């Protein structure tokens, strides 16, 4: 599972993402890598972080990662659980979310995200699940962090559908649409940490993970990658970070697969 470095690129991605979160952040958490990163942050350097899942659970502290955004564990450990309309009206639209954490099926260099269709909308090659909460998370959260494993299929020159608006065509495109939140400010992949150029808003590699190289980053990305003038090296996961993530994932795996199965779905 882990490479010669003692950890996998996916583990590095999740841990690098967790480090970006602070104790006073209020995070709107998507399922998958975002959920793992947020909970690693909570279990290591940011115990006071507020995690919100769109099912209505506010200030939740799950012992295992939820399979869905509405697992019972989230409610059991939450400060309070509200209705879904309230979640989207008072908490997201109300401007109370500091970090919206999203994944993506397709992303472009300006952090625009597609999770709707591959191909044409009316006659898609692949029908994906759709946007869910993402279109409004992307514009109502103060900032957006994105995490995804790199691939030419996922990081593309032009996305097939604008499910969630990032920086549009770059520059001041958000501002021109009247959107006053910062949008995507961080992209963390399995190989690197990317930040938008202050002017063009194009995602630029600012740090390479241990084992990540400029070549690997370019090979797994569909556009010509820009690198910052100084590219740092992401510190390797600490023993505590790695143990926390692995313990969390082991508990999660046991919980999900161990569920005594009924006879029918």
């Amino acid at each position, binding site marked *: 599972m882990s490479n010669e470095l003692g950890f996998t690129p996916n583990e590095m991605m999740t841990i690098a993402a967790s480090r970006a979160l602070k104790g006073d952040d209020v995070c709107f958490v998507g399922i998958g890598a975002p959920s793992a990163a947020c909970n690693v942050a909570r279990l290591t350097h940011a115990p006071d972080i507020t995690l919100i899942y769109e099912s209505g659970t506010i200030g939740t502290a799950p012992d295992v990662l939820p399979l*869905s955004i509405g697992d019972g564990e989230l409610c059991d450990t939450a400060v309070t*659980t509200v209705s*879904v309309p309230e979640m989207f009206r008072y908490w997201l639209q109300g401007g109370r979310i500091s970090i919206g954490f999203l994944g993506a099926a397709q992303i472009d260099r300006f952090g625009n995200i597609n999770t709707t269709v591959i191909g044409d909308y009316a006659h898609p090659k692949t*029908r994906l*699940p759709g*946007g869910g909460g993402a*279109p409004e998370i992307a514009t109502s959260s103060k900032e957006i962090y994105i995490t995804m494993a790199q691939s030419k299929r996922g990081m593309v020159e032009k996305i097939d559908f604008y499910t969630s608006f990032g920086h549009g065509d770059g520059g001041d495109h958000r501002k021109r*649409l009247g959107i006053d939140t910062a949008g995507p400010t961080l992209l963390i992949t399995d190989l690197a940490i990317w930040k938008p150029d202050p002017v063009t808003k194009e995602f630029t590699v600012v740090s390479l993970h241990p084992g990540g190289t400029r070549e690997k980053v370019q090979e797994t990305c569909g556009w010509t990658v820009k690198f910052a003038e100084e590219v740092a090296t992401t510190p390797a996961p600490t023993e505590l970070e790695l143990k926390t993530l692995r313990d969390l994932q082991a508990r999660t795996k046991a919980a999900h697969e161990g569920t005594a199965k009924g006879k029918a*779905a």
Partner: protein
Amino acid sequence: MAKFLPLSQAVADNLKDGDAVAFEGFTHLIPTAAVHEAIRQDFKDLTLIRMTPDLVYDQMIGMGMVKKLIFSYAGNPGVGLLRRLRDAVENNWPRAIELEEHSHAAMANAYEAGAAGLPCAIFRGYRGAELAKVNPNIKSIECPFTGEKLAAVPAVRPDVTFIHAQKANKKGDVLIEGIIGIQKEAVLAAKRAVVTVEEVVDDFDDVHPNLTVLPHWTVTAISVVPGGAHPSYTHGYYIRDNASYLEWDKIAAERDQFLAWMQKNVMESKPEDFAGRVENLRDAK
């Protein structure tokens, strides 16, 4: 006024071919037993409404009951895509299906507007998002005070809503607790509402006044179906059967396999079977 009915009758009395119907539940309390009963009664040309259509909607779509889907996230939550939905959208199998696609914020606001008796909902949404270009039911209004352009969507008003809840009392008041999702709005927005419950208790004297209770006069019919949310869960009764969600990905992958599974587990099954399906899941809480 809520009538206590066997599920087969509650479904037969309240669902009709061509209805716009919501079987709501936000991961928690998904009314699977009611969906299975609707499948056995073989309704046609339904417009299905739900924020998060999951495997029970995959089942109805795969059985050819669905003309149109109004939704905001169509996935097997935490697992992946819905394979029967994909087959319908990509290959028109077993029939073509029309999609009216929204964001969660839009659907939540549309249900809220339905419950509130309004014709539409307004919210700050869809900014820069392409759905507004492919869905003619996404419009906008201008705030008459600030001039800000806000998104507008029509209220959701189902002909009938089905939900699952923890319990009813003998008068027919219904209690929902835990992740309450959009259920209250889905019931109040609908012309008729059918609720499956885990159990019936004498009264709600021990229920806190601020919990989510639907008074009996907002509910059309109640059916007692223990385990009726499986493989979803009922907070306080049994936990989510995550393994079944993982398994569904394989069952739904092939048409024949899907049909065989439906025959065995739905067509030849009955509401009473749900109690057995959650027996091993009751240890929690």
